[in-house]
């Protein structure tokens, strides 16, 4: 049996070596450089999320933390069919992702492989709208689609065709989502396709693969990281979108972000809004973490 003094000493040695190890880690330039950003995210991202989780466990219509935690809000979400807005958001997000992948893949392929230096100009032109507030752009669609607007007004006065406006319907919301999130699918997919070396596709073709086989066996799997990021980004952003359904959808359907906003504002029911947010966060978070776990960002962004 070791003497108490020796034991104490060995413990001290152990803790001091651990301390040295920690000091060595903390003084690495990478750790130091990451600290400011991490602190910002700690107080501006993690803390608010914890507050939301906290509120979600408070009784309905309370405005502070001084109550016994309860699951009442989550029960009422199920009972009062809030899940419908979840389903709508989920369904519309899925449709948006599928449509955008079909729309963006050929363009992304052209920009990554065919257009040469024209691709830079195209990129610039497609980035510009991103910097215009999305509600202005959606308002532009309202002007285009509304009765007596650009489309229907032109049809009526120039061709004498009268038609009903598609505004304030589900297709209008999908149009808005596709429109707003197009760059978010396009650019990651483009990045993914540009990661496929030309040699490799040529080699596959030379080895007797048809165009379709090259696409399925070579291009698609190698571009998959970019496609996954694009799809996930679009899905997650559509899932939490607010402006599209409000501005283009009227009250045609209510998406989850609508419900959350209403609970906080008109409803004055912070705990309910928080509970809805927690569910959305769980859904989004688990998906994001699942996809991110499978990706190596260094490879995608081009570390040498």
């Amino acid at each position, binding site marked *: 049996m070791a003497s108490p003094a020796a034991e104490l000493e060995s413990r001290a040695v152990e803790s001091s070596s651990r301390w040295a190890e920690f000091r060595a880690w903390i003084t*690495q*330039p*990478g*750790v130091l*450089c*990451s600290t*400011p*950003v*991490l602190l*910002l*995210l700690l107080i*501006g*991202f993690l803390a*608010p999320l914890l507050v*939301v989780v906290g509120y979600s466990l408070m009784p309905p219509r309370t405005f*502070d933390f001084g109550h016994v935690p309860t699951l009442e809000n989550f029960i009422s979400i199920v009972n009062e069919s809030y899940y419908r807005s979840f389903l709508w958001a989920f369904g519309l997000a899925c449709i948006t992702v599928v449509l955008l992948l079909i729309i963006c893949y*050929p*363009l992304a392929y*052209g920009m990554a492989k*065919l257009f040469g230096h024209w691709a830079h100009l*195209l990129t*610039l*032109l*497609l*980035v*510009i*709208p*991103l*910097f*215009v*507030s*999305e*509600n*202005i*752009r959606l*308002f*532009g*669609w309202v*002007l285009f689609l509304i009765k007596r*607007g*650009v489309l229907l007004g*032109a049809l009526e006065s*120039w061709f004498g065709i009268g038609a009903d406006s598609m505004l304030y319907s589900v297709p209008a919301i999908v149009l808005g989502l596709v*429109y707003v999130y197009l760059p978010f699918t396009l650019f990651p997919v483009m990045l993914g396709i540009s990661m496929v070396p030309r040699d490799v596709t040529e080699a596959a073709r030379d080895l007797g693969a048809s165009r379709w086989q090259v696409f399925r066996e070579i291009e698609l799997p190698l571009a998959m990281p970019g496609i996954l990021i694009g799809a996930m*980004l679009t899905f997650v952003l559509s*899932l*939490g979108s*607010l*402006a599209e359904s409000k501005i283009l959808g009227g009250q045609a359907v209510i998406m989850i*972000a609508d419900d*959350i*906003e209403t609970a906080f504002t008109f409803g004055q029911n912070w705990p309910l*809004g928080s509970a809805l947010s927690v569910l*959305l966060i769980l859904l*989004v978070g688990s998906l994001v973490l699942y996809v*991110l776990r499978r990706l190596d960002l*260094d490879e995608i*962004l*081009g570390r*040498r």
Partner: protein
Amino acid sequence: MNRSSSKLTRNLIALWAACILVFMYLPLACVALASFSKNRYFRFPIPKYDTVWYSKAFDSLTVQGLFETSLSIALLVTAISVVLAFFGSLAFARFDWRGRKVFQKIILLPIFFPQAVLGLALLLWLSSIGIIPDWRTAVFAHLIWIVPIATLVMSIQAYSFDPALEEAAFDLGATRWQTFREVTIPILWPGIFSGALFSFLLSWGNFPLSLFTTGADQTIPEWLYAKMVSGYTPLVPTLGALTTLGAALVLLGGYAIIVFSRGKGAK
């Protein structure tokens, strides 16, 4: 691959690209069109064109106030986010350290997060620690979303940075600070500049975060939204067109600076 068929593919895709460009700019064109309409309510074809709403916008005190708020937020966000994101991008792409892969993923989380929910969460957090939101809290809110994006933008440049350059400068007798100033910053400059441009423009156009975190103050996108939903005024398309034009000018100017400085550097 057959020559004529590959040319056909190329042309088809080019046509597709043109369609998408039209699709992207169609609503902006509609807004611009509406801004020149004299009528109080928009209808097409426009009976009478006029620039009356532009002169009204320039004279309006409300618009001036909105402009000041939006600009202050965007400038402050840009200044802070450039500094934070610069160091962030070094940690992201330049240095090898234990925890880098985790850091890279943490950085992405706010970008992938629904902004409206983030705005509301920030509102709850602010009220629970007793801060009354105004335009300064909006700066904070914007930073949560914009710093990660600026970090990513700058990282792309930082990835192509060859650490041997810093080592060479150090070896040639430069101090750490001199190396940083003479080698690191100038080489990463295009990335820093793009990051700044992104920060400014994303803050300028942001709506969902501002909506919940500006308190009594109002940015241009917020005001536009409020007027769209209720109390329409023809100033909406006018102001919309103006902010779009402003953003496009900043972006093109910035792009020109990058191209110009690259050309100068090559000489």
